[in-house]
């Protein structure tokens, strides 16, 4: 776990919640979530202890590869829950291809979720409760924008977490391999969703030549508005490994 820099109890006020761009200033009800740690708007590292006070679920990165798998499992739970809700009652205005795309993506996320849970076994964090109050599931644009957010976030989360895998745990390189096998499928999802939003002629499916790589603490801050269960990260890497 090189690069792990415990920051101590950096409690910041509720106003520091999450990323501005993510919730765009709306009043978000986030059951009991207080960010401990830091906002990214002032370039402070999103490491150390990040997340809720009195958490219901704690992921301690001192635990090594298992913590990263649990972190991925949390994100896959979020994505799977989102698409299950979407596919349970699709908004109007989606053509057949779009519906198939959403169904496939939802299935992939469920497979990822169930797979990670099975791999983690007794070490798996519990099922998370989600908070989708801010999503209008009857509105195509709200659904697709949220899907884009989740997929781009997922890509950046795997890209940013892989560097902290040890490669020499009991599973050897398998966790890195698995992360690699999943992340490019998340990228395919992101591409397909972006095309649904921007249209078939657009280059928006891949907005940059290099995707983002986000640290776990930053990812949690962005995902937290959608998760009711109070999650905390302990010993989260504060900077890219070196």
């Amino acid at each position, binding site marked *: 776990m*090189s*690069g792990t820099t415990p920051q101590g109890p950096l409690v910041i006020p509720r106003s520091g919640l999450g990323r501005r761009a993510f919730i765009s200033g709306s009043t978000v009800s986030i059951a009991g979530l207080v960010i401990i740690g830091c906002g990214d708007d002032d370039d402070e590292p999103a490491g150390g202890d990040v997340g809720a006070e009195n958490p219901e679920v704690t992921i301690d990165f001192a635990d090594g590869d298992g913590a990263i798998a649990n972190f991925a499992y949390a994100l896959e739970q979020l994505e799977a829950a989102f698409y299950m809700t979407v596919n349970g009652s699709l908004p109007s205005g989606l053509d057949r291809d779009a519906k*198939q795309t959403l169904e*496939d993506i939802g*299935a*992939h996320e*469920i*497979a*990822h*979720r*169930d*797979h990670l*849970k*099975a*791999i983690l076994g007794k070490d798996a964090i519990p099922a998370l409760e989600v908070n989708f109050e801010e999503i209008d599931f009857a509105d195509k644009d709200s659904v697709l924008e949220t899907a884009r957010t989740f997929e781009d976030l997922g*890509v950046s989360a*795997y*890209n*940013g977490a*892989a*560097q*902290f895998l*040890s*490669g020499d745990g009991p*599973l*050897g*390189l*398998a966790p*890195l*391999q*698995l992360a*690699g*096998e*999943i*992340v*490019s*499928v*998340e*990228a*395919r*999802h992101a*591409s*397909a969703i*972006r*095309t649904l939003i921007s249209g*078939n*002629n*657009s*280059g928006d*499916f*891949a907005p*940059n*030549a*290099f*995707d*983002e*790589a986000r640290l776990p603490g930053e990812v949690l801050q962005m995902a937290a508005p959608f998760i009711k269960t109070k999650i905390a990260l302990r010993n989260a890497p504060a900077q*890219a*490994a*070196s």
Partner: protein
Amino acid sequence: MSNDIPITDTLDPELVDHMARRTALRRGAAALLAAGAGSIGFAAMTRTAFAQEGAIPQQAVDVLNFALTLEYLEAEFYREGNDKDGLIPDNDKEIFETIGGHEDEHVKFLKETLGDKAVKKPKFDFTAGGTFDTFENYETFRLLAIAFEDTGVRAYKGQAIAQAAKPLLANPKLLTAALTIHSVEGRHAARVRQLLGFQAWIPMDFPEAPAPVKPVYATDKELADEVPSFDVKTTTKYGVDVAKVSEIKPKQITEAYDEPLGMDAVLKIAGMFIAS
């Protein structure tokens, strides 16, 4: 998918296989391994990921030169395609200009990272010796774009596992940089697959894949031998049969994972298009 892909009808799979094994391939591989030994400084780094002084171990140099060769191939393929009058319809121009621009940036980044250890750009022949009507037929062009992008996705991953991962894990900044390219290739792959009516993700062993691009989707048996946890397009992953722990259809389970492809298998594919 589309009903007619002209080159599938005209091309003998054995011929393709033969092309892949001809000497051009070996020259490509030799060029790849021609990178000198030793370490380099990071003086020319443009991206913050490399804003440190340090040395790249030889094994990582090999991996990066392998990636650079593929990026050269992709970049030149799109440059020629984008420059060819009448090949790409107006509706799709932005797609290929976007992708081509990214491949140019990947080339630039890898060249700067490798400095004087960077391999030279090979001479490409995207007709593979007259086999493909690549820049005359938009369907062929799209098909090769799919093959190159899906190969790229699998190739980067292939270098993130097996022995190659050790030097990369020991150089987390390199690993992360490679991953941030890898996922962009995944975005490209999804889009170009859709342009021929395929799903954005790869099901099972992709039986619809036309013969010339079959190797892109084949099981890499050598890699599978080297990496015990590696299964290609089965529902069993890392000792867990996902079909047993999830309610999802087997086809969709296999779509949910992109498998790696080792260096030899990738060079066999890329070698078809390396003239010298």
